[in-house]
């Protein structure tokens, strides 16, 4: 045992051991990435199942139909006549209809300012009080006048009105039903949900005059298609990558797919053959959406308040009509009505790859954690390395292990590294502020301006620091160590909140682990170019080019998301990723001064 211990101690001082960490961290990244690609396999993913006993999806006959079809047509006529009118005019008409059904109605004004624009409107909502319920809980049926793509919800609004009329006739509701008709898909529902939970800024968003009980779930209908449809598309991404409870999605899949015989699609995978490539694509699309953290429909704003919500979009050419869609909603509402407590049995952290296949957090989290761990490993490695003298004397006597003499250590010069890391961290407030506060017209120019500055900044810092402080190799190691330590720390905690964002940032900043101050100018330039290709603005530009989007539009959406829905992706990009990138660039450009004589025995 003592021999083993002493040999282990000797191993610790073995210079070869110091060569391992870079390979180890490369291995972490590779395993993390490969892990992700294994997930869609049958061995790693699981079939979905209903966990909550109370839901009992698809066990009820749905009776929506028959004369409701005529009611629907009448409402549709009314709604069609409102197209193109102002928000208030529309609400006047809709309110008179809803009031006519015998429901309590109320309106709510909201105004948001983002990217120099004003997003204002008036929400209309109505409460159907459960005839035998105790008004302590409520479920929400949402239809936005315009969907996320700004198309008029021509069938969704009349369908919700018809359903409200139909639901009013039933006496079996245990929870109140709230009908929310918002002018748009993002700001309106956000203002309403904020105000419902008294979490609104009352200078911009009006308080709600009437309320019901705690919200237990919400279904939004986004039905713009005029012809008969084939399948239902479930949109489930919430703000900041939060997801509704998997039981809700499973219930809708069960009711629409099982009971009604419709197709069910996720993540715009209109045709899904349940083979590996399609599963992977669905999963990656889901991850991308989750990573961006944007609101994807009226349901998104509900999820941060722990109200499980999805948006249902009929699509495709088929034989299902509006009544079938109504029955899906009826069935889902009957299931939600059965709930005794909040949905909590099933997963909140999952990646869906098919309507009936998912991986849960326990299975997928290690991949992001491994990627994040690679930064931490490198940070520790560099810290150790910085503590050793630069030039290990080749003929240093092999010290016997039982003599407990310490290895030579170098004194760490922390001032400059800490200053550089702090500087890059505090500079990150500038892009965060700029991109969230300049008006829309100035977004694109300021982006390109920032791109240039972003390229020049590391060079400037490098020149200034070289001129003023003549940094040593050890100091560069420490700069990198600190910035990677922060990066690893942030990403591993982020992975538990928004796995996809942590994974994306982790993979994009992977080169930061492996760049170092190069002595040859060519290597230095190549390293700098590689880093510039993976810089936050460059990635933004590249993704805009790939998806054929305008950079200005992307930035506007990001600013709106920041101001309206409170998306924090921008903070992660500018305050976690960008400073690490900046510190990495400074390291690559650094021309370390080799020092001698600083070796001392501790």
């Amino acid at each position, binding site marked *: 045992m003592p021999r083993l211990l002493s040999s282990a101690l000797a191993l610790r001082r073995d210079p070869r051991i110091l060569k391992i960490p870079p390979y180890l961290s490369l291995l972490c990244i590779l395993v993390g990435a490969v892990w992700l690609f294994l997930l869609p396999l049958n061995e790693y993913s699981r079939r979905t199942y209903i966990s909550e006993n109370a839901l009992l999806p698809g066990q009820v006959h749905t009776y929506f139909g028959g004369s409701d079809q005529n009611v629907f047509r009448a409402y549709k006529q009314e709604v069609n006549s409102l197209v193109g009118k102002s928000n208030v005019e529309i609400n006047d008409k809709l309110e008179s209809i809803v009031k006519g059904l015998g429901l309590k109605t109320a309106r709510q004004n909201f105004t948001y300012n983002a990217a120099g624009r004003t997003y204002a409107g008036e929400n209309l909502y109505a409460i159907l009080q459960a005839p035998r319920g*105790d008004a302590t809980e409520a479920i929400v049926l949402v239809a936005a006048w315009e969907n996320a793509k700004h198309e008029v919800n021509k069938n969704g609004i009349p369908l919700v009105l018809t359903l409200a009329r139909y639901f009013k006739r039933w006496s079996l509701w245990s929870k109140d039903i709230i009908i929310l008709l918002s002018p748009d898909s993002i700001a309106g529902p956000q203002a309403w949900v904020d105000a419902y939970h008294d979490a609104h800024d009352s200078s911009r968003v009006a308080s709600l005059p009437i309320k019901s009980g705690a919200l237990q779930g919400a279904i939004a209908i986004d039905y713009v298609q005029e012809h008969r449809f084939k399948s239902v598309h479930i949109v489930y991404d919430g703000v900041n990558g939060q997801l509704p409870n998997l039981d809700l999605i499973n219930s809708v899949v069960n009711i629409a797919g099982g009971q009604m015989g419709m197709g069910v699609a996720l993540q715009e995978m209109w045709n899904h053959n349940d083979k590996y490539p399609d599963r992977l694509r669905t999963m990656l699309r889901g991850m991308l959406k989750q990573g961006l953290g944007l609101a994807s429909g009226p349901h998104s704003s509900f999820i941060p308040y722990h109200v499980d919500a999805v948006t249902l979009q009929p699509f495709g050419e088929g034989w299902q009509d509006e009544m079938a869609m109504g029955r899906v909603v009826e069935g889902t509402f009957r299931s939600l009505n059965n709930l005794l407590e909040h949905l909590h049995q099933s997963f909140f952290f999952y990646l869906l790859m098919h309507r009936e296949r998912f991986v849960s957090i326990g299975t997928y989290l290690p991949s992001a954690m491994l990627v994040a761990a690679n930064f931490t490993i490198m940070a520790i490695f560099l810290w150790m390395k910085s503590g050793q003298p630069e030039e290990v004397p080749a003929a240093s006597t092999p010290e016997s292990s039982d003599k407990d003499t310490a290895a030579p250590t170098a004194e760490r010069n922390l001032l400059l590294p800490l200053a550089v890391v702090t500087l890059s961290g505090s500079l990150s407030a500038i892009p965060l502020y700029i991109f969230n506060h300049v008006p829309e017209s100035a977004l694109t120019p300021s982006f390109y301006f920032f791109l240039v500055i972003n390229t020049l900044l590391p060079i400037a810092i490098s020149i200034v620091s070289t001129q003023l402080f003549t940094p040593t190799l050890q100091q560069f190691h420490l700069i990198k160590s600190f910035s990677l330590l922060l990066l690893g720390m942030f990403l591993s905690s982020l992975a538990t909140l928004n796995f996809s964002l942590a994974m994306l940032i982790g993979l994009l900043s992977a080169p930061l682990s492996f760049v170092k101050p190069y002595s040859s100018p060519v290597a230095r330039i190549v390293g700098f170019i590689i880093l510039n290709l993976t810089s936050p603005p460059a990635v933004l530009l590249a993704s805009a080019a790939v998806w054929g989007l305008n950079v200005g539009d992307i930035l506007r959406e990001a600013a709106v998301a920041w101001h309206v829905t409170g998306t924090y992706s921008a903070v992660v990009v500018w305050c976690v990723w960008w400073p690490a990138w900046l510190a990495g660039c400074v390291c690559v450009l650094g021309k370390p001064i080799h020092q001698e004589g600083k070796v001392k025995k501790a």
Partner: protein
Amino acid sequence: MKLSSLLLLPAALLGAAPSYAEHTSNWAVLVCTSRFWFNYRHLANVLSIYRTVKRLGIPDSQIILMLPDDMACNPRNAFPGTVYSNADRAVDLYGDNIEVDYRGYEVTVENFIRLLTDRVGEEMPRSKRLLTDDRSNILVYMTGHGGNEFLKFQDAEEIGAWDLADAFEQMWEKRRYHEILFMIDTCQANTMYSKLYSPNIIATGSSELDQSSYSHHADNDIGVAVIDRYTYYNLEFLESEVKDTSSKKTVGDLFDSYSYEKIHSHAGVRYDLFKGGAEEARRRLVTDFFGNVQNVEVDGGKGAETNSSFEEEMVKLSRTIAELHKRAEEQEAVERNVTTKTETRKQQQKKIQQQVAKPLTDDSWWTKKIVGATALAGCAALWGLGSYLEGAV
């Protein structure tokens, strides 16, 4: 208290009343242990058994019905005020004339065990008590969510198979039943009666260890399953074969009607506790448990007369013994009072109390002495034998 135990003494001396005698009353304890809307079927199970035993003549006063939830008034119920156990909705189980004895959060393990063993406070109304005697046949029907050797009560607690077995044993000791038919419909139901050890119990359950019990069918307008398979097929038998109390169908016939094809789990039966075993148990009529009997035992028979006179004599005798002892002790106490100081009065009082209790155990005192002496002698002999053998080896 003292008097009653004294009264019991001769009865104990007489030995248990002949168990093969007929029963004179029928009771039913019908327990549903789950609440919540999605467990609608459990309440429907119990209510349908309730309807059956009422149909076969057990009056409400002799039925203890435990319902933890009120499905009829649940807002989710599409047919307010009703409970159905069949999708045809022919019989409203919650219609007129229903008496729920324990409802809501009164349905607890403690209350159930207190009910069985009659350990209840004085304030407990008679309608909530199981007022059985040694001539009462009891049907105990339970349903809910269970597991290996436990049955969940609502969402907070569960009753174990041992708890149940001990409760039945207490009932037997307190001569609270003549025969029991224990019936349970839950997952892994048969484990619940595996620990019973008291005599004269026939037990049956819906499923074996590691087997689930399944629901029979759902009513798609109510939106939930309305009855479990095991109960459904029991009811089917009871309704088609046991049309009235004159039915001669036996418990054996009922058990033979169970099959895996119908119930989708292996229903179990336990006869070994019954006097006479399977043969005797199977011969019991279904109406012995599900129906009400009108058998009356008249105290006119020859045996009965001799018994009662003997009993009375014994009571008299024991009273006299007690009286004599009491007198002797009082005398003693008086003597002591004279000689000792007042400080020790309390101790004396304690002693007196002990002595007062003595007559009850007096006759077995010698037996105990003998048993003890024999045991000691036996031990000594064993020890001697052991040491002898050791020496021999």
